[in-house]
């Protein structure tokens, strides 16, 4: 049961973070205590707590600094949002808790026994598929970012097209970029979650060649999370988002092709 609650809390934290970023406003005149993101955050905190409780009564207590920290932070955020209505705190707390859970799951030394009904191949396949899709959309976001930057520069410098009707408008490019960023981030997140669960369940201690992969994947995930948070909270303009997207694509390319180099360099 512990693992079920653990995985459930991971999924709920990820969903809560995504919904917070998508739906909450950085500055909102209304305080919705029962917003979907807040409910998910509460559910995630509860699930994590139940996991602790079940572990306490079950096998040896698995002390994990990351899990404890995640639980504490989540409950503080829930209390703050309930008392003050500051539901936007979920935008920061949920991704942080997700990251902490990733750290815990990837740092497991021994694989756990398989939960009945859970198939390694399905989970592994899901991880690979969503990781690839996430990277594909992230690269599409970089392409959209590049086109946006070129068109923006042309308009700023008044290098106007001969056939204006044939040019995609700037705001449409911006919407495409945002769409690709979001979809890419969702798939990357699902890939991370499924990968973390798979590792925790069936792998245990990661082989050396996969450590850098996990580190880079986490970096990429954090990078895109930062882009979306900066867009949402700091109201970062589209030009900077585009530049960051292209940076994210560079990170992706490194994580995809450059692992061999960095593995030996890091060792």
């Amino acid at each position, binding site marked *: 049961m512990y693992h079920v609650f653990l995985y459930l809390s991971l999924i709920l934290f990820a969903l809560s973070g995504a919904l917070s970023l998508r739906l909450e406003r950085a500055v909102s005149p209304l305080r919705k205590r029962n917003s979907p993101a807040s409910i998910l955050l509460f559910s995630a905190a509860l699930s994590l707590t139940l996991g602790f409780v079940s572990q306490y009564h079950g096998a040896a207590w698995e002390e994990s600094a990351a899990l404890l920290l995640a639980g504490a932070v989540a409950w503080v955020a829930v209390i703050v949002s309930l008392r003050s209505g500051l539901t936007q705190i979920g935008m920061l707390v949920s991704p942080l808790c997700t990251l902490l859970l990733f750290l815990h799951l990837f740092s497991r030394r021994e694989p756990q026994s398989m939960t009945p009904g859970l198939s390694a191949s399905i989970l592994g396949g899901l991880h690979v598929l969503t990781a690839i899709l996430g990277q594909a959309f992230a690269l599409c976001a970089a392409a959209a970012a590049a086109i946006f930057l070129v068109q923006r520069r042309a308009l700023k410098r*008044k290098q*106007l097209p001969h056939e204006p009707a044939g040019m995609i408008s*700037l705001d449409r490019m911006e919407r495409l970029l945002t769409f690709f960023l979001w979809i890419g981030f969702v798939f990357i997140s699902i890939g991370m979650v499924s990968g973390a669960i798979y590792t925790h369940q069936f792998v245990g201690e990661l082989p050396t060649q996969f450590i850098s992969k996990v580190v880079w994947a986490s970096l990429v995930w954090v990078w895109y999370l930062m882009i979306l948070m900066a867009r949402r909270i700091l*109201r970062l*303009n*589209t030009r900077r988002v585009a530049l960051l997207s292209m940076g994210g694509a560079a990170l992706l390319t490194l994580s995809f092709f450059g692992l061999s180099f960095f593995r030996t360099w890091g060792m």
Partner: protein
Amino acid sequence: MSSPRKRIFCIGANHTTVGIERREQLFIDAEAVRGNVDAVRQEFGLDELGILATCNRLEVFGVHSEGSDHHLLQCFRKVYELNPKAPKLADSEVQNIVYIYSDHAAIDHVLRVASSLDSMIVGETQITGQFKDCIALAEAAGTIGPILKRLSNEALATSKKVRTKTAISRKPVSVGHAAVDMAKLVFGNISKHEVAVIGAGEMARIAAEYLKGHNPRALHIVNRSGGRAAELVRHIGSAQAHTLDDLPDLLRRVDIVIAATSAGEPLVKYETVRSAMVYHQQKPLVLIDIAIPRNIEPRCNQLEDVYVFDIDDLKQTVEDNVKEREAEAQRAQSIVDEGCQHFEDWLKTLDISPSLNAFRNYLDSLIEREWEKTRAKGILMDLSDEQTEAITKLLRSIADKMSGDASSQVRNPTGELSSIHLANALHALFGQRGRKH
């Protein structure tokens, strides 16, 4: 003594000879023209004078009996210096930016201008109204005579024929339309955005009407005079009227601004836009300036997420439309050529009419003289009133016939002699001095 030959001239600068910065300096408003056109005419000894000042051209056209190109250059300089902000230009600089036409070339140019064939946007409709206003202003100032009056009538008639007999204006491409197309480069779907149009004149009206067809989320008309804004709103429908005081607040809300006023200084300033962008939450703001002098500070383009386009930028977007109209423009030119011929034919009659009138007067006075002489001798005294009237009618009929035949032959000579030569001969033969050319 022969009177000097009158010549029609046109001297000016337009969008093809000067860039937007210099055109801003050349611009003079209607009040300046109204107050000074007659003084300029007298100073340079011109018989007739008209001044056409628009956002894309400053033209001085008229009639003079003497004078050189240098004389006309000085006249042009005098006119553009009516703008207090106009810089002092050397003669060579003025020469570099102007074109000078005389006689047939001047007539052709005036007709082309009035028919919008010389406009930045070929086929645009504003120029005809601007030309009419210029003539009305000159008439009010008393600087229009029979030649310019006739020329302006011919120009307007030609303009009307060009629009009705060619498709040059059927594809409505104007500066206002081009401005809206420019906004679409940033905002593909205008229906999701609020738009403000600053100004209530012809260009603003065209832009607002075209915008209305795109169903923006809200359309705001801003003008110095709230009454004119309200009038335009009534004409368009489903828009809101504002005064310039509302502009800073509007800049926070709207996504597209089209400025088309004749204000002498920028209405949309850098600092105002910078303050407004805080409320835009990183969404772009498009400022399109189709006025000269410019209504929007060009510096606003330096702001992040602000895109400023002026009238020179619109030129690029309408190049394709201009190409499409080239064929129609060629057809329109043939109509202009007909108008030129028609006017020049009339112009010729100015030279021969005095001679024909003199011949007619001679015939009338001859009939009168001989009739009195005959009656004085006591001949035909016993005629009844009816018979007297019949003889008088007969004599007048003969005079009409002779005068008509002479006029027909002089106006349409079939031999080697020209109209002028025949007119001079008539003048010499029948007692009055002919006009030699």
